[in-house]
């Protein structure tokens, strides 16, 4: 008889004290992650938390899991390689809007297409925190930042729309001001077989002010009860809503995971031919 070990949230908290600014939204996000992990009883050594660079990307260091705070924008491919190497590991990718939608924006669609079985949590603060307040792809049109004294001349990206267009199989939205919902979204996302994306509004109090919590709170609404989360067109409509930010799961539709497809492919390869060193060499023998 084997017993499943239980964990409390503290089992996931490392000794490293976060260097985030007091009041930063990211504190709630890491707290919700600890709690989701405890609920899911994931052993820290069976978990890997991968990130790029940014304030939010410091998160792996605050966990007791295997962690990699890698280079800016490359968390997703790094995690993809890791997941392929260790399919048994629970892989969590975390990071910021700049890391994920700007420099790393070229990787997101492909992990989605592959439906790699991992959870991607973006702490979106509509700004570059770590580098001190430059615009990001989600900064609103017209906003004044360190790099836009006269107002930002670009339309923001809508991360939920991106995820839906990329074919992400699980798309959710959360808010650092609502830790409880956040935790349950994380639980659901990590349980999801396939690529799960959670867009978390996590205000940067230093470069966009405490009031961002209120701005989000005012626009936040739970996903309507009658929303069919397998209806992608409906999900697009929620994501595109000009006024409200719908919190919860906007879309989920099971799909073969990359790992399953790779396994199938391994089987057909085994059936189809001799593979590996010896048989490869044999192809080149003149007799």
């Amino acid at each position, binding site marked *: 008889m084997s017993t499943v070990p239980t964990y409390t949230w503290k089992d996931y908290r490392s000794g490293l004290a976060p260097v985030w600014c007091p009041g930063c939204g990211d504190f709630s996000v890491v707290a919700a992650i600890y709690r989701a992990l405890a609920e899911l009883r994931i052993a820290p050594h069976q*978990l890997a938390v991968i990130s790029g660079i940014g304030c939010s990307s410091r998160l792996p260091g605050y966990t007791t899991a295997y*962690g990699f705070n890698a280079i800016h924008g*490359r968390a997703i491919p790094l995690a993809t390689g890791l997941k*392929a190497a260790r399919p048994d590991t629970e892989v969590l990718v975390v990071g910021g809007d700049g890391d994920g939608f700007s420099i790393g924006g070229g990787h997101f669609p492909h992990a989605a297409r592959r439906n790699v079985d991992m959870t991607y949590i973006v702490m979106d603060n509509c700004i570059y925190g770590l580098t001190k307040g430059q615009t990001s792809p989600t900064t609103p049109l017209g906003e004044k930042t360190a790099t836009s004294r006269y107002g930002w001349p670009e339309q923001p990206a809508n991360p939920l729309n991106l995820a839906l267009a990329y074919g992400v199989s699980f798309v959710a939205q959360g808010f650092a001001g609502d830790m409880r919902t956040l935790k349950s979204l994380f639980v659901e996302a990590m349980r999801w077989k396939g690529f799960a994306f959670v867009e978390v509004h996590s205000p940067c109090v230093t470069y966009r002010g405490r009031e961002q919590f209120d701005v989000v709170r005012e626009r936040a609404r739970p996903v309507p009860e009658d929303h069919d989360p397998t209806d992608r067109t409906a999900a697009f409509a929620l994501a595109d809503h000009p006024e409200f930010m719908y919190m919860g799961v906007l879309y989920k539709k099971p799909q073969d995971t990359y790992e399953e497809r790779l396994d199938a492919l391994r089987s057909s390869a085994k059936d189809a031919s001799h*593979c590996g060193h010896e048989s490869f*060499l044999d192809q080149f*023998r003149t007799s």
Partner: protein
Amino acid sequence: MASEVQEAPRRALTIFLMGSGGDGVITAGELLARAAAHDGLGCHLTKSFGPQIRGGESAVWLQVSADEVRSPAVSADVVMALSWESFPRFAGQLDLSPGTLVLVDEADSKAPDQIEDREGNPLTAVRVPIRRLAEEETGSQLGRNLVALGFLSALLGLPAETIPQAIAKRLKKRGGTVVANNVRAFERGQALAGESLYVALGAKLARGDKRPRIFMSGNDAVTLGALYSGVEFFAGYPITPASEILSSLAAELPGIGGTVIQAEDEIAAMTMVIGASFGGKKAMTATSGPGLSLKTEAIGLAAHAEIPCVIVNVQRGGPSTGMPTMTEQADIQLAVYGAHGDVPRVVIAATDTRGCYEATVKAFYLAERYQTPVIVLTDQLIGHRLEALPADSFEPHESFSKVNRRTVPEDNPTEPYKRYRLGRNPISPMSHPGIEGCAYRTSGIVHQENGCPTSDAGIHHVMNEKRQRKMDMLLKEMGGFQVVGPDEAEFGIISWGSTSGAALDAAARLTARGRRTSVCIVELLHPLPAEGIAAYAAKRRHLAVAELSYSAQFARLLRSEGVPLLDALLIHRGGGHPLLASEIERRLEEQFQ
């Protein structure tokens, strides 16, 4: 014409077969070369294409020899043109001489009446009824390559059956009639040669011993090396001339439980490899110049976080997109010095097909043992060239299989696990997800022993030192270079990679003419065995450095790492065409006469 034929047994012969798209030149060349290899001849097959994907000109160089072929030739003993139309495309690289036998289809209207070499000397040109015979036997001019193949196979004195058997195998699916027609076309070609005296040219070619051979390209040898080393993960992005490694591994790895990902770009490929290796697997990527440039940042991360991984770079002509299907040796500085900060990494070079295998096997050994990225530099010439090798060329490497994988900590160790433990041994055990009690967090930020970020300059220093000490250890373990030639050679040539073969041939010819010459082939480009090379250099009265880089990157590397070249003759030029033994020989003779 008989007077032109050498009666003494020849030891080597070069055939240039060219045609337009659809002429089947490549197929004919490969069949011919395989048969020659099987018959005990050393042989190299080099392909050449125009910029078109289909329908352009193509050609093959086939160098056959009683001995091992070591370096490219541009002089041709026999030129066979399926379409003379394609001649201008290749004229620049062909070195024709009065001794060259030029075979042109009698029906080829594009061929001039008088065929001349570059100096305008008339050549021995013979009109042959290739097209007519093809049409007679196969009902189509498409069979021309088979007639040519038959002709050339007779010329080389190859056993009559080998190639028809291969034809039958290839065309089996298309039915008995097709096979029979094609074999007959082949035989007509054979007979055509037999009727003439040209057959004496090649039939009398001295033979090595007849053993089964392996006929393989450098890229395939890289794949073989990776499979031998137990590669478990490969991520890559297609790029000429490295794509074959991705294709082959995509066919081979899944069947033995591994994973191949065609990534969205080279940066993704490199970071996927880092992720897989962080996961404890043997991981690899392959690319060419533009891809290596893009991987620069991620290679820095791998070095800093001490992630074992292998990066194969098949060099092509640069800069920028350059000449994708042609060779050059000008990625050396990028490989050795690319990436911001002080980034120790290992760079090793391959000289030929076997070298591609060996370098790959070594690369996995070094990557896993020293927990570092290892870059293998090959190039288009050896990556795409097919070489005949003895069947036992790829025997297991005792010395490099002894460390099969990085050292890994035990579950739940008694002392707290420190990923970057500092100690007398700079190699610290590397954990991976799944090992209990050894979870750690790492990053591209300067880290402490346990992986935690720090901005302490003192720790930065000791971590720099840790990484450097691994390189020092590695340098001690590996020889890193090889000297070939007479012991007390007066002339010395330092070379690397695919140019080494030409250097060896040049040295052999110089030595044969009384100028004792040896070659120092550098295999480990970084960390560079500078002391050993300097000692070699110091003992030579005349020294040359030979390489295929306009800016002499290799010579600069040698100087940079402490080999004072002083009066050495730098033989170097940009790529496109490989550096030839004859060029090296001539430059040395001119300089040091």
